[in-house]
């Protein structure tokens, strides 16, 4: 095997330990020096309802998207795994439990669907775990053990990560899991002695700085910690909860706190209160919770109080598809809520950006005295990449507060009109600057005033302030050769990786195409976007919503209609889909 690029998938029923196995695999592979991009999907119900799939792409170079073709499938439950068959590569490797607890009718076993040319490895995961540890729970580890043996993966890393994962549950649990893993490993060593495959170990193992496995959610939490966030207020909701759980383990050490509130309304309320008093705080939620927050978010806009809100998008509307990915809250994040309530909305495209943009959002919120919404989605939140521990960029995390001048003491107007729209903001406890903040329309002093002139002036002030933030926000990034392009692909959030992957492949195929990454959703960099568009024959905007929300937001910048590629399948968009569309637009057949 030459350059390494392998996608390994584990599929089982919820309760089979699928996700846990995927996590262990990713960690071990990362430690061993591989580059990792992984994404799990699991059902909303804890048990019974459905299928869990972890997909991990390992490579020598950084992976930016998941592909739709799987090289290795580990089936922990054949009934569930049958649905994965269409995604298998022609030479895929399939590991399955060849001693299920009951007879299967013809076709119910995954073995029935493995085409010649694929390689079938049967091992009795359940029995191996049961015989090694007395419990079938370790079947996922037995499966991992078999995988490790077949691919000759470095064993020590697996043993380490298993020990680390189960340490908190006591030595006996660690031992039981080690035993299950070893049982799988030994079985495979023996039974598949002549079918061991092996993959190249990256030369970088041990040389580069140690890499961390970070999910988007953890990166957000780490970014917040880098910005020295003090409080997290939240309410459990998939897929945002892991941010709360991660911070719950970290904040108390730093004199901070996580408070689980009774609902999302109180969560955003507490965040606003905290910022009002000058302390950094945040909350994270998903669509339904975000909807509950909209009133108080607009309160933050009106009262010019900072807040940091992560909206981890999932399938909607309403309760929707809690465990599926979608990018359909964009317009709600930008425009949602009563009145003209412009606020800052940013959307990272990968795990590293999750970290940096979150870190920076606190300063933005303070400086522009507005709620800042970080839009992520289920895929980005849960996908795992391994990267060198990020550190905050200069300037990102500094105090953004604009304090009033000494001269204004005793004569302080909280909402004083300025050129930029930014009014210096005093914090409670500062003597001589007392003011009322309100969600009612108000004059510069902060007292209510509903006069036509005042409402006009103050609305304009708030809008000017938000637009002036553009200078501090990330500009779009072009990935293209100079000159005319047949197709320009603009994408955002978690879909951008797939777009770039597709564009890179298209460029390798000799097509004149380019990509534009947009991470600042509102206010947006109209000039830069227009400049990119102007050298493109066609603009293609792939995104995971039905109406084309980014296309709606920025499409008017292009003289023609932009071409929309919309999917609401609940799963990430694959590069191959975008590539096919690019080729179709240009008029080339096939992939």
């Amino acid at each position: 095997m030459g350059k390494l690029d392998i996608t390994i998938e584990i599929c089982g029923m919820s309760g089979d330990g699928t996700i846990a196995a995927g996590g262990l695999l990713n960690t071990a592979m990362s430690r061993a020096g591989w580059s990792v991009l992984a994404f799990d999907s699991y059902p909303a119900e804890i048990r019974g309802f459905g299928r869990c799939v972890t997909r991990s792409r390992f490579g020598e170079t950084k992976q930016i998207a998941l592909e739709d073709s799987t090289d290795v499938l580990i089936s922990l439950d054949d009934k569930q795994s049958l649905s994965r068959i269409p995604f298998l590569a022609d030479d895929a490797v399939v590991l399955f439990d060849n001693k299920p607890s009951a007879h299967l009718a013809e076709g119910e076993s995954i073995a029935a669907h493995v085409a010649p040319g694929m390689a079938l490895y049967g091992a009795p995961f359940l029995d191996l775990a049961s015989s090694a540890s007395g419990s079938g729970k370790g079947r996922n580890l037995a499966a991992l053990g078999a995988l490790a043996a077949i691919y000759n993966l470095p064993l020590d890393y697996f043993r380490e990560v298993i020990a680390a994962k189960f340490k908190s549950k006591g030595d006996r649990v660690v031992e039981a899991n080690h035993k299950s893993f070893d049982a799988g490993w030994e079985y495979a060593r023996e039974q598949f002695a002549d079918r061991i495959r092996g993959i190249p170990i990256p030369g970088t193992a041990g040389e580069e700085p140690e890499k961390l496995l970070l999910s988007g959610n953890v990166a957000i939490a780490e970014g917040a910690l880098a910005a020295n966030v003090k409080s997290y207020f939240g309410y459990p909701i998939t897929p945002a909860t892991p941010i709360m759980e991660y911070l719950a383990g970290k904040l108390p050490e730093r004199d901070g706190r996580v408070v689980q509130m009774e609902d999302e309304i109180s969560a955003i309320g507490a965040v606003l209160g905290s910022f009002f008093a000058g302390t950094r705080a945040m909350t994270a939620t998903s669509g339904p919770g975000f909807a509950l927050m909209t009133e108080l978010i607009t309160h933050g806009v009106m009262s010019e109080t900072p807040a940091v809100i992560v909206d981890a998008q999932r399938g909607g509307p309403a309760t929707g598809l809690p465990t599926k990915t979608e990018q359909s809250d964009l317009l709600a994040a930008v425009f949602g809520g009563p009145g003209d309530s412009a606020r800052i909305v940013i959307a990272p495209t990968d795990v590293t950006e999750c970290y940096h943009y979150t870190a920076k959002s606190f300063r933005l919120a303070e400086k522009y005295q507005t709620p800042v919404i970080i839009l992520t989605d289920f895929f980005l939140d849960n996908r795992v990449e391994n990267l060198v521990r990020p550190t905050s960029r200069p300037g990102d995390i500094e105090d953004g507060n604009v304090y009033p001048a000494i001269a204004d003491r005793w004569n302080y107007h909280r909402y004083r009109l300025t050129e930029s729209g930014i009014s210096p903001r005093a914090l409670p406890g500062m003597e001589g600057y007392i003011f009322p903040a309100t969600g009612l329309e108000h004059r510069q002093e902060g007292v209510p005033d509903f006069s036509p002139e005042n409402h006009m002036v103050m609305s304009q002030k708030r809008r000017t302030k938000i637009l002036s933030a553009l200078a501090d926000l990330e500009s779009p990034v072009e990935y293209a050769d100079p000159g005319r392009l047949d197709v320009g692909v603009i994408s955002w959030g978690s879909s951008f990786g797939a777009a770039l992957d597709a564009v890179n492949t298209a460029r390798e195929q000799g097509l004149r195409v380019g990509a534009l990454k947009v991470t600042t959703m509102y206010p947006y960099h109209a000039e830069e976007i227009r400049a990119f568009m102007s050298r493109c024959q066609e603009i293609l905007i792939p995104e995971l919503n039905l109406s084309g929300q980014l296309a709606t937001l920025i499409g008017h910048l292009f003289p023609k209609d932009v071409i929309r590629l919309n999917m609401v399948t609940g799963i990430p968009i694959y590069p191959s889909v975008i590539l096919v569309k690019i080729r179709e637009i240009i008029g080339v057949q096939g992939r």
Partner: protein
Amino acid sequence: MPFDRWPRDIVDPQVNREKSQPIFSTDPAEFYYLGLNVPCQRACPAATNIPAYIRALFENHYNRSYEINRLSNILPGVLGRVCSRPCEDKCRHGETELGEPVGICQIKRAAADYKDPGHTYMTRLYAPLGKTVAIIGSGPAGLAAAHDLSSTGFKVVIYEAFNQPGGMLMYGIPEFRLPREILMHEIDGILRLGVDIRYGVKVGQDMALEDLLKDHDAVLVAAGCYASTRLGIPGEGLPGVHTGLDFMIRVTSGEPPKVGKKVLVLGAGFTAFDCARSALRLGAEDVSICLRRTEENLRVTGDEILETKSEGVRLESLLASRRMIGQAHVEGVEFTRTRLGTIGGDGRQQIIAIEGSEFVRPADTVIVAAGQRREPVKFLDDNHVEAETAAGDHAYVTSHPKLYVCGDYATGPSTVIEAIAGGRQAAGRIVEDLTGRKFREPVVRMEEAQVTDRQRVWDFIPRQAMPTVKPVGDRFETPQVEVELGYDAKTAHEEAKRCYLCYLHYEIDIDRCIYCRYCIDVAPRDCIKLVERIETNEMGAIVGYRETSHWQHVNAVVIDNSRCIRCGECLRVCPVNCITVTRIEQVERIRPTGGD
């Protein structure tokens, strides 16, 4: 539907329940249940309580384990070596997906090997009844009958044609399979009950059957099958041609015949194998067992076949002998090839000799182990009495009111364990006929059981191999070297762990079940079912389940004991403690004064 089916307040039923008394049942449905769910005990002709003795051995109660055996099968130490093991064929652990059967027989032997040297089995004795029974033959059937009759209070006299007791055990089974001191020890345990034995008396020849009938209240013929079946082919009388039984009797009596270099054994039973292996020990170099069919149909166990082949004996299939060749001494056997025909009534393919395919195999010695039949014990007028076969194979009675038959004599050649079972049943028949009372009867005993300490990992212990003398050459130093060495105590314990203990019955109390399916989640196989209906047969025993996955139709969650491997996981997780365990086993009820 009555809604008062919640006979409990909120207490843990496991904690406060009083230990209930065992129940004894003679309901045929319960016997049917046992047949389906404790297949080993059902397979044993003597109904040995196998799970109980394996469990006793597991608890290191070797004496107890031996005694449980002794209760049913009289000769545990002997059977532990020579039993045909019908139980193991039926062992749950040997079901297709579950591995290999438990080494039931070897555990039996271990119990005998490791019981206290001074351990004496205390037989329950009844007051003398003042009646006497004569038994012809001291083989396993005669000994078993003597044991039961004697302990019930009869005076028993055995008439034995040979000079030593044991019948086929002594004369039919080679010493490398059954050391004689083991045999004698257990026979002594029976004779000790006050059984008289007269050696060297062949009834009908040395003594008149009429006299016996006159002197005793009953006479039981347990004379076995000592007439060799002949093939009825030319040349069988040539020197160098032996019948299997005669060959074995001479070997076991210490006067072995001379065997040549090339030996052909014609036959497919245990005797054929014993003859072949004995021939090797007498110096033969090239021994073949010639089969009419193929190995597929042998009754001999797989282990036995492997050991025999390892010693160098060859098995040759599809051979039908036509005649012995030779002038002054046998020089060979002419065979025809056999071929398979259509499927017969027994579901097996018929084997037909092919005319015109004759060929000759040279041989220096030929042993015809084609089976035995009984030699009738005759009256003075040369008549003999036939068993009343109309009443079934094990009817034991004959047309003569005082004359009974049992063992191989009644059934034709069978196994040791069948002979013992037959002897005991014949004794029961005699007791009932002579006293009008039943002192022993099989009943189903049920008792609430505590959860066992079985662990799931034990289910994955492989069957412990029986150690045999290796290298094979060492076996031939003397003909007495016992080939199977027996488990050491640790191995026996390990093997005992493997037993699922099928005598434990797991049941969900529908009245208390909340249908949460926790048990199904932890079940190791599809042993717990969501059912719409339970199907029963005319006896009222469960024969099937109509399963469903429609919530509306899930009328009960039930444990299918015929799939259950008694791992106990369900019981450990049940949130409402609605799973009960009953120890259910077939035992012999002994009536102090006898009953109807």
